[in-house]
Every structure is written in structure tokens, then in C-alpha cells.
């Protein structure tokens, strides 16, 4: 996977949202550090899962890739070119290549438009598929996502949550994009609909050789659909690896805790596996902890080093990165988990 030409490169991306404190004080130095210097890339045809809890910056990252918000610093490159400074025309072309599937299939579809016109909307804006060809394309897309071609004249309220999410996916596919960003695509769905949407995502991805960035808090969903996983905590990447590596050889204590907290419906596995109950709450991204941002809750806290020095994201095994002082004494690609201090 690593040898593939990256389609999307995220380089030292930072997003700080300045906060006003009180009416007259104006914008001070205070800012929500939503994303704080992260880098990763997404290979052509690869599905990358971005996981973490609320406030970790996963959605903000996705939105910067979509060029919906402007980074404070750093850049996103698409097909080798930075998207920071696109002309209006280039931006329109970019919008054709990247599409998004939203979390809430209820509020993301216009209730006054028929499903057919919702799906045709991106084609209208981009001037693709005129007249009868556009109607044919709408019908084709409906069938592609498992709905009936006759449903083009229906309104969104006539569909269930899972079916609405299919409509969202059909809309995203309308312009034959290269890249799709899915923001919590199954979080608001029932289990049966969730399974249908996850299978659909897998199918369209192999059928159209799509590159997908999927943001979710659900680690079992990520394992099912992704090739590679990026784990974030408070605006930082704490671990990044291929899905099988991450799930079999979890390195970072936060990833481990996250893994153990995923409820699985298998009571036997539930009894056997490691149960890590983290102390405390997720700290405020307004004032993240010093050193390693996870040190306030870390079950493997080493002492001063964690509190004072921010761990670097280092490649511990080929393709397996983590930012943790537990692995600091492994200068090259070895796997010792000693707790030696940095000095």
C-alpha cells in the first residue's frame, strides 16, 4: 500500500479556531487547537479511516481536505498539487473530483426536492449530462446504490434513514469523483441499515477504484472498511498503521484503550479481552496538556518525560507510526516496548 502514488497528501496541517473571550476583549491569543500539525497521505484507491473521540479534530481535518475550511498553516495536496491556492476555475474542477457523504441523512437532503433532482443537482452545477442523459444517469445511480429507478420522483421523507444515506452516496457518485470523504456515514443508522451502507461503500470503492477518507468514532466500522487507520487525540496523530497491524499490534496506550472500549456483541470475547477504563475526561482543546496530550489519562504514564516532552510520531515498524515515549528507546525499526526516558 505504501508504494502507491498518494492521491491526497496532508502536510503539517494546522487549524486553530480563535476564541473571543467576553464582549470587549476581542480575539486574544486563545484558540481551539482543533488540528495541530498533522501529516499523512492517502494512496490512490486506498480507504483511510480517521478515528478518535469528539474534539480530536478528525472532522476538521476532513473538511480541510475538502477545502471547506482554510488551514491556519500547512497544506493539502491533491494529485500532487496544493489545493491552498486554487483559482475559481480550478476549484470548480476540484469540486468535481472530490465529494462528500454526510453524517445525518435527514438534514443533508433538501425536503422540498425530489430525490431525482437532488441527485441531478451536482450535474446541473457542473454542466454535465444534459437532458435525457442526465435522467438516465439519475436512474443508473439509483440502481447502483440499490434503490429503484422509479423512486426518482419521490421525496426524501418517503425513505428510511438507510435509504436516505444511499441517496447521499448516489449524489456523491454523480460526477464520477476520484475521492470521497465520508463523515460518520453510519453513526445515525440502525444496525441493519449500517451493514447495508458499509457493504455499499466497500462495493463502490472496488467498482470505481475510489479513494475514501472515512471519519468515525467506531473502531469496528473502521476495521471493516479501511486499509489504513489514523488515530487522533486532541488534534494530534497518536498512531497510524495498516488496519491489520493496528488491530493486531496496537502500540499507543490511547489506541488500546479505545479498542478495549468498543462494545462487541460477543460476550465470550468481552470477558477475555483487556478492559481499560480510562481515568478522567478528554481535556479541553483550548488548553491541551503539555508534553504528550494524553498524559493526563494515560494508564502507562512514565513520569516527567510524558508531561514535559511532546513525543514525535515515529515509524516503529515499517508503515506503523506512533507518538509515544514508551517506544522512544527504539531508534530504528525495532519493537521493544521499554519505558526508558528521553534525556
Amino acid at each position, binding site marked *: 500500500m505504501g508504494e502507491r502514488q498518494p492521491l491526497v497528501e496532508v502536510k503539517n496541517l494546522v487549524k486553530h479556531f480563535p476564541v473571543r473571550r467576553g464582549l470587549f476583549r476581542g480575539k486574544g491569543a486563545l484558540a481551539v487547537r482543533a488540528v495541530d500539525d498533522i501529516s499523512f497521505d492517502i494512496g490512490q484507491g486506498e480507504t483511510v479511516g480517521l478515528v478518535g473521540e469528539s474534539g480530536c479534530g478528525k472532522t476538521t481535518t476532513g473538511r480541510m481536505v475538502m477545502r471547506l475550511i482554510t488551514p491556519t498553516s500547512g497544506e493539502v495536496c491533491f494529485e500532487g498539487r496544493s489545493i491552498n491556492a486554487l483559482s475559481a476555475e480550478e476549484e470548480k474542477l476540484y469540486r468535481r473530483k472530490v465529494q462528500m457523504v454526510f453524517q445525518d441523512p435527514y438534514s443533508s437532503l433538501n425536503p422540498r426536492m425530489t430525490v431525482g433532482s437532488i441527485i441531478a443537482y451536482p450535474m446541473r452545477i457542473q454542466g454535465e449530462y444534459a437532458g435525457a442523459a442526465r435522467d438516465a444517469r439519475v436512474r443508473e445511480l439509483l440502481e447502483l446504490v440499490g434503490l429503484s429507478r422509479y423512486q426518482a420522483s419521490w421525496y426524501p421523507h418517503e425513505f*428510511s434513514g438507510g435509504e436516505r444515506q444511499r441517496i447521499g452516496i448516489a449524489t456523491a457518485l454523480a460526477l464520477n469523483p476520484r475521492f470521497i470523504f465520508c463523515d460518520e456515514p453510519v453513526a445515525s443508522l440502525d444496525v441493519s441499515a449500517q451493514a447495508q451502507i458499509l457493504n455499499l461503500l466497500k462495493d463502490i470503492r472496488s467498482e470505481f477504484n475510489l479513494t475514501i477518507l472515512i471519519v468515525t468514532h467506531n473502531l469496528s466500522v473502521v476495521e471493516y472498511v479501511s486499509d489504513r487507520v489514523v488515530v487522533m487525540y486532541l488534534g494530534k496523530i497518536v498512531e497510524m498503521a495498516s488496519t491489520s497491524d493496528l488491530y493486531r499490534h496496537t502500540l499507543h496506550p490511547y489506541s488500546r484503550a*479505545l479498542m478495549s472500549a468498543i462494545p462487541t456483541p460477543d460476550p465470550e470475547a468481552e470477558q477475555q479481552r483487556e478492559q481499560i477504563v480510562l481515568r478522567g475526561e478528554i481535556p479541553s482543546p483550548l488548553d491541551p496538556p503539555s508534553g504528550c496530550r494524553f498524559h493526563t489519562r494515560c494508564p502507562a504514564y512514565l513520569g516527567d518525560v510524558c508531561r514535559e516532552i511532546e513525543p514525535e510520531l515515529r515509524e516503529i515498524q515499517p508503515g506503523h507510526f506512533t507518538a509515544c515515549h514508551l517506544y522512544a528507546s527504539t531508534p530504528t525499526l525495532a519493537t521493544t516496548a521499554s519505558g526508558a526516558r528521553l534525556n
Partner: protein
Amino acid sequence: MSTAVDLPPLVEVQDLHTHFLLKKKVVRAINGLSFSVGRGEILGIAGESGAGKSVLCLSMLRLVPQPGRIVGGRILFEGKDLLGKSEHEMRGLRGQAISMVFEDPLNSLDPAFTVGDQIGESLMLHKAMTRSAARQKAGELLRLVGIPDPERRLDNYAHELSGGMQQRVMIAVALSCDPALLIADNPTTALDVTIQMQILDLVKQLRDRLGMAVLWITHDLGVVAKLCDRVVIMYAGKVMEAGDVYDVLKRPRHPYTRRLIDALPKLGHPEQRLIPIQGRPPNPADLPEGCPFAPRCYKVTAECRSQAVELVDTGDGRAVRCLHPEE
């Protein structure tokens, strides 16, 4: 953990029917539901949205909003039928012997009162405590639910707390009068997984320490596996299957339970393709005559569609409503 088999259960719901009587149709949200909760037991009620789980909660507290009505059945609490009680008697029970935690903690807490006032309110009302005694007890309750620095937190307002802390406060309010039964309606869906883990851990500890029974309503079978002793699988306002959590999730007998499990991604087995449940849940205003799951079932036969299927007790603490159960 099946506690006290010979003692009568704390709660027995028998053939409960809660309907919403609309102008032109009747929405049958709860449709002949029966189950029991033992003392000190954590019972999970699991099902998809629209199964009637939340209406069940409201029915048990007799808080079903208009035009909904409990039209049949009995809810025995400590042997006495709640449906025969006066509104005055119910007020004495709610928040006292039976208390409830809702899905969205921020909407259930009053933004205009401090946390201490809200916990203290039920103590002053139900236990006739003085203001200062109630405040002290409120502090103890906050400590019990694992809130650090409880004395200081008493003076906080709801918006000053995180989602996990708010849910802990809700649990503290619910625990204030030592309830025999705690009803929790999807209380962790709005929380992050690591915080959910803390809350599940807390509920288990509290059950062990205080001996209360818990009715935990959820759509997440994973949460059921982590927390509950027994589980009831609900569909279209009926019990489809009930039994020990381990047995039901390991060897589901009802095709619906089986499909619910098959539809979930399993940690560690990403190669297993998910099997979605085809079709949609039935419209509660227009339920099919036979088994409500028949239109979506892989084992369906002609009898399933034509005759009403009874919930059959299979002896080993399990019950299943199916003509062709799995072995």
C-alpha cells in the same frame, strides 16, 4: 448472574399494550409485551429504532404522552399493579422507588439550577431533608458516581460540565432516593466510547454495591454484552427472544436476533462480510397478522404469515417467539 430464582421478581410486565390513538389509525407501539426483572439484576432491552423501547420506559412510569394510552396488561412492581395506582401514588414512586435516566443529559438537566440544587430537590421532596442535609447528601452522591471534587461541583450549572459528567449527575439524581429500579433509556449513545466505558463500569459497581435492579434500554448489542445479565430482544412492540446474555448472543434462537448480530462488524474479523437485514421494520399502525418479522425472515413459512406466534418458554431461562427457532 441470575439472582434469587425462587424470590418473586421485582418487576413483572404482563401482556402490556400501549397504543397511540390517532384520528384515523391506531399506532400499536407496545403489543403484548411480557418480561420480568429480578432484584439486583441488569436487564437489557435491545432492538432497533421503532421497536417500542422508549414507549416501554414511559409506560413503566405511566408517563406516556397523549394520545398514547396503556390499553391493556399489568405492570407489577413489588407485586402491586402500577396501572391500578392513582396519579398521587405514582408521584410517590417516580424518582423514589423507580427512577430514570434519559438519553440526552443536557436536555434533562435544568439550566437555571445548580447541580446541587437539582439533586437536593428530590431529597427534600421525597425524603423531607433540610436544605443543608440535602446538600451534604448531594455531595456524597456526586462522589459515589465518580465526580472528582464533588463539593465544588455542587455549585456548577449543567452547561459547565462535559457530557459524561452530566450523565453522571443524572445518575446521581436518579440514585438520590435509593431506587429499587433504575430505568435507563439509551443513556450512553451521546457519549464517547471511553466515557461510555466509564459509565457502564460505574453502573455495574453501583448495582453490586446498592443492589438495585437496572433496566437498560439500548440499540447496541455490544453494550448489552458488556453490561447486562439478561437481555430481551424487542421488535414491533413484542419480545422476540429473552434469556441470559451469554446464551442469547452466543446461540441466538430467533432469526431476528441472529440477523442483528450478523449485521454488526466484529472486531478482529473484518473479512466477514456483513449480512444486512432486508426490508424495513413493519409500520406499527399496520402490523402484519402473523409474526411481525416474517416479511424479512430467512426461515419464513406460510404459517408464520397467517397465525399469531406465541412467546414460548424453552425452560432453560430462555424464551423465544418463533415457529422455526434455531437450535
